[in-house]
């Protein structure tokens, strides 16, 4: 294990153990500050809606390439997760948060089984054919890639899948 990976994992554990650190980190960092917010009215009934999940928790299929943990500015790429994937076929690559709990139960960061239960009981009409995952540690020039390329790409794929609503989870 490289020194960078070791350092990232220790910091990640500290952030989970001491949530106040997140507040300090947020104060010390510059974020993309937006003035206006896009808006799409949700006008359907839930029971008629097809819902997808999008997470930035670094989830991917075991058979997919992991996210780049070497680049200090992160990895703006995404992975398609077929919505009926068994949780055991998933894994997490993300050294910037402690995912020990999510490794045991993927629903902690990616509630795919809970959403499926809502589909079975009829609370929602259905689950989208695929969900999407990013690795939410995006800095520097990758921010532009996320805003202008990979974010809109996922949006268009969700639209093509007839998705009516998206529930999103951070790491």
């Amino acid at each position: 294990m490289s020194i960078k990976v070791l350092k990232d994992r220790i910091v990640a554990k500290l952030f989970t153990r001491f949530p106040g650190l997140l507040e300090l980190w947020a104060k010390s960092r510059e974020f993309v500050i937006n003035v206006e917010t896009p808006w799409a009215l949700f006008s359907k009934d839930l029971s008629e809606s097809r819902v997808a999940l999008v997470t930035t928790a670094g989830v991917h299929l075991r058979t997919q390439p992991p996210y780049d943990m070497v680049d200090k500015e992160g990895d703006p790429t995404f992975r398609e997760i077929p919505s009926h994937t068994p949780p055991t076929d998933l894994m997490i690559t993300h050294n910037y948060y402690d995912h020990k709990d999510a490794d045991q139960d993927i629903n902690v960061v990616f509630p795919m089984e809970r959403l499926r239960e809502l589909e079975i009981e009829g609370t929602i009409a259905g689950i989208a054919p695929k969900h999407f995952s990013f690795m939410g540690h995006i800095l520097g020039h990758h921010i532009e890639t996320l805003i202008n390329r990979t974010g809109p790409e996922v949006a268009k794929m969700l639209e093509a899948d007839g998705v009516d609503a998206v529930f999103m989870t951070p790491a």
Partner: protein
Amino acid sequence: MGLIQRAIEAEDIPTISISLNRMITEKVKPPRALLVAFPLGHPMGNPFDKDLQRGILLAGLKYLEAIKEAGTIVDLTMKYRIKGRKCTLCEVEAGR
């Protein structure tokens, strides 16, 4: 995550996200967010706590319908919080 959320909403698909930090969410301004008092890595709460995870997911879908103003952050920190390893106050939600 807010940046991806904004891209999806711009494609005319309604979205709602879980927020673990109000300050970040206020800066990025996603269309709709639910603020919970969970540590990093636990947006849906504790592992194997199905009631808690279901409660948060249902709250998200409910507020997807209820929120009518862009940039709204609904504060659920008093309802959904994890202290130590236990979810507190969620007993009320689960009717226990």
